[in-house]
């Protein structure tokens, strides 16, 4: 057992090192800064969670449904755990890079599986605690439930992540295994994940519609939560009504599912890993005509290949574009004569027919677009993703400027469908010339910002020693800084619209400021970025 915990501690160390980009740092100060930053982030996120829970609690109190708070937050936490864990399965349980080295150690397969599953549990437990503890505190402070509530809440807390991990692992394994059997593995992985996510979204929206029929708001919400997550009623009974049988059932089902999963995975761990690590090979290659490109397009094409060969990269940085495109297409569809012909009626159509909502959507359109663009930086990981391949770019006769331009061009190309989206949005929402100009200019300045800023941040916080791409794309310091900055900028944009009565003027001020920032950042990239790249 000590070997298992030793393995877990090493893996957690590796996750933290990857996350904080301190892989190469021998400097105690930078390590301390990294850990300090992480602690600050946890405190910050707990604060945000506390704020949200307080807001939800006051909303629920108005409907006399405060008892829904713990179960609502628990279901939401489980759902987010489920979605985020699906993409961690490949790289943690299967297909991890150091498989050969780890499997050659004198540790049993069961021990190895246990160490991997415990790692997933530990990561999810931290996330669960960040969300659930503030919810527990808020409910405790507002409803004043008593000591038994505290006891049951604390006991059940440790079992909340188990079922989401099991479900995510099963789904993640199916996706990864099925994908590994196809020639276009990564494309399959990406498409399957998107279809799965959209399927879930569609399903939960349908459930939401059914809920609308209930006159009682509280009942409607309960039905919604219970249908989204079947363990929710047990949790609710245990925490709110102190039902010990329900608590034991909640714990029992969670534990049983987890143990069963661990046993099954233990049985097929080696088999699945071998299947996933051996890529499919084509038939004998025959030399044909080769296509020649310029050095810039060669690097651009290589970057594009990198992007589409890493599902987590596509899903994490391209999902905003996909969602916006699907949203724009849906907007076009629901307002088209075809929808009438098929007798399809959507709530959005009713909303659009109301002048005040239509006007609001028109005013906030560029803000929404900014938000989706800010979440779509591919450059924030493109330096780190060079990883052990960095020597290739550094030894080739291609200038740093060309490399940076190619990486920026890829980000802009990934964002390019948004140009079509804004045309659709403008068309559906009847934008006038000024509104059209605003949304086009906003798209341009934000796209340049997110591409150049992402690259600069990644140059500042690189991580070349990663073991899975997930740590670079989702959990790195660069990713965190980029997402937080993006949110901050969208917040500032909203503040400008809020403070300046003339919305168009507010947008033009924002566009002007962003254009200046873009120029400054590009200059910094060419000066600081180039010398920084030489240091690696």
């Amino acid at each position, binding site marked *: 057992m000590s070997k298992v915990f030793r393995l877990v501690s090493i893996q957690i160390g590796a996750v933290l090192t990857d996350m904080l980009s301190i892989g190469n740092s021998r400097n105690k100060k930078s390590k301390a800064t990294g850990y300090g930053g992480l602690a600050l982030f946890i405190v910050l996120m707990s604060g945000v969670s506390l704020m949200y829970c307080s807001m939800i609690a006051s909303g629920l109190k108005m409907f006399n449904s405060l008892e829904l708070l713990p179960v609502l937050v628990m279901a939401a936490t489980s759902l987010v755990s489920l979605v985020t864990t699906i993409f961690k399965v490949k790289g943690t349980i299967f297909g991890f890079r150091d498989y050969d080295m780890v499997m050659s150690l004198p540790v049993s397969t069961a021990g190895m599986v246990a160490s991997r599953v415990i790692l997933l549990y530990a990561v999810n437990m931290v996330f669960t605690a960040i969300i659930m503890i503030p919810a527990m505190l808020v409910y405790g402070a507002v409803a004043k439930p008593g000591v038994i509530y505290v006891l049951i809440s604390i006991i059940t807390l440790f079992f909340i992540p188990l079922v989401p991990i099991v479900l995510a692992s099963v789904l993640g394994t199916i996706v990864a295994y099925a994908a590994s059997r196809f020639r276009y593995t990564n494309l399959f992985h990406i498409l399957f994940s998107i279809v799965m996510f959209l399927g879930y979204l569609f399903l939960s929206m349908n459930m939401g519609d059914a809920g609308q029929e209930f006159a009682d708001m509280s009942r409607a919400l309960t039905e919604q939560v219970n249908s989204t997550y079947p363990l929710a009623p047990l949790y609710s009974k245990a925490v709110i009504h102190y039902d010990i049988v329900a608590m034991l059932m909640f714990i029992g089902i969670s534990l049983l599912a987890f143990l069963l999963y661990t046993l099954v995975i233990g049985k097929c761990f080696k088999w699945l890993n071998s299947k996933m690590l051996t*890529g499919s090979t084509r038939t004998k290659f025959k030399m044909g005509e080769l296509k020649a490109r310029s050095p810039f397009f060669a690097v651009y094409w290589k970057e594009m290949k990198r992007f589409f060969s*890493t599902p987590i990269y596509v899903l994490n940085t391209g999902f905003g574009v996909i969602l916006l495109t699907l949203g724009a297409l849906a907007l076009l569809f629901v307002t088209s004569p075809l929808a009438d012909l098929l007798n399809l009626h959507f709530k959005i159509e009713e909303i659009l027919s109301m002048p005040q909502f239509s006007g609001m959507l028109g005013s906030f359109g560029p803000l929404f677009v900014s938000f989706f663009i800010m979440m779509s930086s591919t450059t924030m990981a493109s330096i780190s993703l060079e990883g052990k391949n960095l020597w290739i770019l550094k*030894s080739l006769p*291609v200038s740093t400027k060309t490399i940076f331009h190619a990486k920026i061009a890829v980000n802009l190309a990934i964002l390019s469908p948004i140009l079509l989206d804004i045309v659709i949005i403008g068309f559906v929402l009847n934008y006038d010339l000024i509104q059209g100009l605003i949304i086009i200019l906003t798209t341009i300045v934000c796209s340049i910002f997110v591409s150049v800023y992402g690259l600069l941040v990644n140059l500042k916080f690189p991580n070349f020693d990663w073991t899975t791409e997930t740590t670079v794309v989702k959990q790195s310091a660069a990713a965190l800084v980029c997402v937080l900055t993006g949110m901050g900028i969208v917040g500032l944009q909203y503040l400008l619209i809020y403070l300046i009565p003339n919305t168009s003027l507010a947008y033009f001020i924002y566009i002007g400021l962003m254009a200046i920032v873009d120029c400054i950042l590009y200059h910094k990239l060419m000066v600081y970025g180039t010398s920084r790249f030489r240091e690696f």
Partner: protein
Amino acid sequence: MLSIRNFSKSYSRDKKAVDNLNLEVAGGDIFGFIGHNGAGKTTTIRAIVGVLDFEEGDILVDGISIKKDPLACKKAIAYIPDNPDLYAHLTGIAYLNFIGDIFEVNKFDRETLIEKYADAFSLTDNLGDSIASYSHGMKQKLAIIAALIHRPRLLVLDEPFVGLDPKASHTLKAIMADLCKGGSAIFFSTHVLEVAEKLCNKIAIIKGGKLVACGSTEEVKGDHSLEDVFLELIADEK
């Protein structure tokens, strides 16, 4: 072809990884760079090919400073590291074509040379496969082919024979000899002293970052075997 002048590199304040290194490699030379683990071989090689930045001294390729005009130098160089981590997401042929694009090799030369060297290393059948599915030796062969398709004037290799099968090693040695006949220079590090002794016309031995021997193979080894000379030179002074 390659001139290393007073080159020094340190990773920490108190210790130099390479200390005041001076070397000359002429066209047609096969230059063996020998040293114990951590002697400074890879540091020197990484600085020559422009992967590693340095402050002290200079390195000239064809009379051009790698510090002042790295692109011009890199156009003349081909580099094969000791552990070639190549783009796993590309196929073998896509990687070779990428290298061809960067070095602006014309289509005819590109196709002809890829075919020639891939056949020589028995890799043609696998060029359509993803590099992720390649063994260490296959990656090494692919890196060698990529290095050769742009006809480098200076070939820099770090432990090139590690991971190669005997046939591929033999092929590489023959290609190295051919390149030198054509006027190119080869600078490589190795721990296989028998290979260095047979293949190289010049040898340098580095110890603790400092050059302890340099010259023609005959001058360096004298009447002894290279192994004896090497062991004697790197033995700790007590």
